[in-house]
């Protein structure tokens, strides 16, 4: 109900919104929760398990009940807390977890079956038949028990991530946070202040206290405007700091545009990573409910929330209310209600006696000292009546429409506990408080540290601000705290009211006092076990309202103490963070940059199908008219290269320029074979091992000068090889004088392969490319259409081949020329598929074969591991286990009716059992060879080198394919290499 003329927001202006299809009107500054209250909507949701009717409990991010879906279609956002959702024009919200409607929810029948549905019910009941769990029980339970549902469509909204840096991060903009920020900022520190609310001031926004002679909220506004005017302060409203991490890093979630009717290009939310030299935690405290029978009825709310709705938003849950609790806050609440025109039927003070008689016992309203509320009755629409148990044991009924409750306050210790520290029990406050130095470079001030008076908060903020300044090497500031409320805090803890009926501890997960007792009775006595067994403290609120009371009830049930029972582990995030906010920017090119080859534009014009190799996008094949399957294009491209000439962009291969007096010695150390003996102008195949003796990578390395080499690596291994070279140089051979750098990006490089390769290059390269000048495995500088380039006579196809390189800016133009000329000779472009087929025909290796578990000897290159010199992997390559009875590289061809060979399939004897014990090897590469008109494969077979000519069985258990194969030499085509040498 609206309290006409009350509250601090302007209710003369209208904002239209819809809830469950009903058009309603709120005001600027409303949250969805306050607007619903203004529209007399008391029932806002159904509970998780029992589908109990629920109303708004709080006015903050800890709200367990008022979860709604905001928005429609793909953009719908489930589980939005109505207390945090600011109202905007046209907002559409739906209640959740009910069918067919919030008023008439069929599954409310669960509540009648509650005696059977206690904690552990599912575990015990749905045990058999076993197969039913996945197919029947789980889907049914999931449908019945739940929060809101995602739309299932791709999220069209924009999210963002960002980094921020500061000297002092102040978490929370209440009285302590504002004073800490002001002190630190006046001292010259770079300050960020975050508050999860839309407005700074913390509780001051919602209370009626004065500070320094003016309303607290006005005082807060003054401080905020001073801070806003300082260049070294960044105010971040609507930003919840979600986690403390190592090294002064904090996570934070900013609601950038969730309050805007039209976000435009703006992100809805931004996930910040804030790095702070110091942090002052002023996160405040959370008010605790009291567990009594039916305490979950709509209309029963936290006392601090009631004050917020009354004082700030000018609305109340009912015209007649009672207040029940264990601290002086109940009197404050009663006074605020009275001042706003709400009838206060009773103040039920559970404490045996108030500490401060004169202050709290003003006889303004009926006070029931030492009494408790032991039951509540009402319907879906709200509370009708409460039952009191008086100090003398008598019961009394009171007709009220609302109840404000206060079981005391729990400091928000979450961010002090994320790095492993545990909070400490303070018996006087009946609360856990942060331990000293829980997080390095973080201090805690105000209610978060257990200081519950405004004056103490202000003073602690100043102190913490000055501590931060001193830690930063700056001077402390003389900031004086204004005069403020300084009442002592006096609580007599009350966790639950004994009696019949279900008393809720955890509203969100429908966990009652009885459930916690049940957990203890079944020996789930550790607080972590109790949590998992009952689900207390899970889901979106993470037990912010219920954790302390639940463990207190557990302690009582087990006969232990509260500090002995302890808390569960606090983990980030403090408030729910959408996965999409964590992942913002990490989709598409933000997930994996797209590296484009120099020939990208022409390849696209030629219709190339692209594939990814590392981050590079490379042509897989070039379909021509009439080709409907990649195999047709691939077969044609292979034949084209073998018969004429083909062009392939090989820029992507890692290229590392190595120079220096010790370059040759270094290469001898990182390669298994020797490079110091390589002559200038020559290229050699190199095999690189890991220190454990297995093959790491292979490639060709050219000697460009006496102290100058150019190494190539496999495309996808370029980063790994660079890291390895840096390791060997810096970590193992720092005395060696050499330098190296990647030149992959500097040089565009193209393979020109096939019998007509010389013809293609003849017109482009100034120098004659005859056999004498350019024998196989030679290299050198050339002039390419007037530009300085490099030429390498190497071949990965088995044909006469060159690789020609020019600075990258000329790459696209050179590729055009090469392709045009090749096409004149009946050649053309070839892609990765054809390249792969040709190298399998030749028995050349890729990382499909040298996959990290093979040795040089396994692939038939054992001779390359020189024993004359030390090199990485040399010692371990010769250890006993790697020398005998190995699976060795072989070629394979189908022999029987089944022609298909599949990489990944395993090899077995031609006849006999097929078991893991009889497994003899596996295939690593397979293709159809148009050259030899057969399927071909490379694979590893036990002692395979001695078994050429034998028959083995290939079995692919996944696809159910079995093929009889013949074992061959890995080189299937042109075994003496005449074609590429010629």
């Amino acid at each position: 109900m609206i309290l006409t003329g009350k509250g601090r927001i302007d209710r003369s202006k209208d904002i239209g919104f819809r809830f469950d299809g009903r058009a309603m009107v709120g005001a600027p500054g409303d949250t969805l929760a306050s607007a619903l209250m203004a529209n007399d909507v008391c029932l806002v949701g159904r509970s998780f398990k029992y589908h109990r009717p629920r109303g708004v409990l709080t006015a903050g991010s800890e709200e367990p009940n008022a979860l709604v879906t905001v928005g429609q279609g793909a953009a719908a956002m489930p589980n939005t807390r109505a207390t945090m959702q600011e109202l905007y024009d046209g907002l559409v919200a739906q209640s959740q977890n009910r069918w067919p409607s919030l008023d008439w929810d069929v599954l409310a029948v669960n509540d009648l079956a509650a005696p059977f549905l206690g904690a552990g019910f599912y575990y015990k009941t749905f045990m058999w038949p076993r197969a039913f769990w996945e197919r029947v029980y789980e889907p049914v339970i999931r449908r019945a028990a739940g929060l809101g549902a995602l739309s299932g469509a791709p999220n069209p909204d924009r999210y963002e991530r960002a980094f921020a840096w500061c000297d002092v991060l102040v978490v929370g903009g209440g009285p302590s946070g504002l004073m800490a920020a002001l002190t630190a900022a006046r001292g010259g520190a770079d300050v960020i202040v975050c508050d999860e609310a839309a407005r700074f001031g913390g509780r001051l926004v919602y209370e009626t206290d004065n500070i320094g002679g003016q309303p607290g909220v006005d005082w807060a506004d003054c401080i905020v405007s001073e801070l806003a005017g300082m260049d070294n302060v960044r105010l971040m409203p609507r930003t919840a700091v979600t986690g403390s991490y190592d090294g002064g890093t904090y996570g934070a979630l900013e609601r950038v545009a969730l309050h805007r009717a039209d976000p435009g290009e703006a992100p809805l939310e931004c996930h910040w990573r804030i790095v702070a030299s110091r942090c002052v935690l002023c996160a405040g405290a959370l008010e605790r409910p009291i567990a009594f029978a039916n305490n979950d009825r709509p209309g029963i709310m936290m006392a601090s929330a009631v004050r917020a709705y009354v004082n700030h938003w000018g609305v109340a849950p009912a015209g007649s209310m009672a207040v029940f609790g264990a601290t002086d806050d109940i009197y404050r609440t009663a006074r605020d209600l009275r001042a706003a025109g709400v009838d206060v039927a009773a103040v039920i003070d559970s404490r045996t006696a108030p500490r401060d008689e004169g202050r709290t016992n003003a006889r303004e309203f009926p006070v029931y000292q030492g009494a408790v509320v032991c039951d509540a009755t009402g319907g879906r629409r709200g509370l009708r009546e409460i039952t009191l148990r008086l100090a003398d044991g008598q019961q009394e009924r009171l007709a009220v429409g609302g109840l404000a409750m206060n079981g005391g306050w729990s400091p928000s210790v979450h961010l002090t506990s994320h790095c492993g520290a545990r909070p400490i029990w303070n018996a006087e406050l009946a609360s856990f408080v942060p331990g000293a130095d829980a997080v390095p470079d973080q201090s805690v001030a105000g209610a978060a540290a257990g200081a519950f008076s405004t004056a103490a908060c202000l003073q602690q903020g100043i102190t913490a601000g000055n501590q931060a300044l001193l830690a930063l090497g700056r001077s402390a500031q003389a900031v004086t705290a204004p005069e403020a409320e300084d009442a002592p805090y006096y609580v007599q803890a009350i966790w639950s009211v004994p009696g019949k009926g279900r008393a809720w501890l955890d509203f969100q997960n429908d966990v009652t006092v009885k459930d916690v007792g049940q957990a203890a009775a079944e020996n789930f006595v550790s607080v972590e076990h109790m949590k998992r067994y009952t689900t207390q403290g899970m889901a979106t609120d993470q037990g912010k309202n219920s954790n302390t009371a639940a463990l207190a009830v557990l302690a009582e049930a087990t006969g232990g103490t509260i500090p002995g029972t302890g808390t569960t582990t606090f983990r980030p995030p403090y408030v729910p963070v959408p996965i999409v906010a964590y992942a913002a920017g990490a989709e598409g090119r933000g997930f994996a940059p797209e590296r484009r080859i120099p020939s990208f534009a022409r390849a696209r014009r030629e219709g190339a199908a692209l594939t990814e190799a590392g981050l590079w996008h490379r042509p897989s094949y070039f379909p021509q008219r009439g080709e409907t399957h990649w195999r047709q294009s691939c077969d044609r491209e292979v034949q084209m290269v073998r018969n004429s000439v083909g062009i392939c962009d090989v820029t992507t291969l890692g290229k590392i320029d190595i120079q220096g007096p010790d370059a040759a010695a270094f290469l001898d150390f990182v390669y298994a074979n020797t490079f110091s003996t390589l002559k200038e102008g020559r290229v050699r195949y190199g095999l690189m091992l890991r220190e454990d003796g297995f093959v790491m990578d292979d490639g060709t390395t050219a000697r460009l000068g006496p102290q100058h080499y150019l190494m190539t690596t496999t495309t996808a291994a370029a980063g790994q090889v660079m890291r390895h070279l840096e390791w060997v140089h810096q970590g193992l051979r720092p005395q060696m004088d050499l330098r190296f750098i990647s030149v992959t990006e500097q040089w565009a490089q193209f393979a020109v392969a096939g019998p007509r390769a010389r013809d293609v290059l003849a017109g482009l390269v100034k120098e004659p490319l005859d056999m004498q000048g350019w024998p196989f495995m030679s290299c050198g500088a050339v002039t390419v259409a007037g530009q300085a380039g490099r030429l390498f006579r190497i071949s990965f196809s088995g044909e006469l081949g060159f690789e020609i390189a020019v600075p990258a800016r000329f790459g696209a133009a050179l590729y055009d020329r090469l392709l045009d000329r090749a096409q004149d000779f009946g050649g053309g472009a070839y892609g990765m598929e054809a390249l792969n087929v040709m190298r399998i025909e030749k028995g050349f290796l890729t990382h499909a074969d040298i996959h990290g578990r093979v040795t040089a000897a396994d692939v038939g290159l054992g001779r390359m591991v020189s024993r004359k010199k030390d090199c990485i992997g040399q010692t371990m390559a010769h250890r006993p286990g790697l020398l005998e009875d190995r699976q060795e590289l072989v070629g394979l061809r189908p022999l029987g009716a089944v022609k298909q060979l599949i990489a990944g399939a395993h090899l077995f004897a031609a006849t006999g059992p097929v078991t893991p014990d009889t497994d003899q090897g596996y295939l690593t590469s397979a293709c159809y060879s148009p050259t030899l008109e057969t399927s071909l494969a490379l694979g590893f077979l036990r002692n395979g080198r001695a078994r050429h000519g034998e028959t083995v069985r290939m079995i692919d258990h996944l696809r159910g394919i079995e093929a009889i194969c013949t074992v061959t030499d890995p080189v299937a085509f042109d075994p003496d290499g005449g074609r590429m040498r010629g």
Partner: protein
Amino acid sequence: MRLPCPLCGARDHREFTYQGDATMLHRPAPDAGVDAWDSYLYLRDNPAGRLHELWYHDAGCGAWLVVERDTVTHKVFGARLAREARP
């Protein structure tokens, strides 16, 4: 987590690649024997406490670092260039 690169300054851990115990700096001689090589390659202590470990500043300066870190508290005590950290 942030690591203090001696060249670049404190940087987010995403810029680094982890390599494990700094034992890898002490490569045995080729003829040191099987036990020495086995120990070098495969045997590591797993202390709950201070550990010298290798990190590569991949996205930064390209330096290999020896970082001293507490595996329990994650406190980082410092970092040196690996090439200067060898005995």
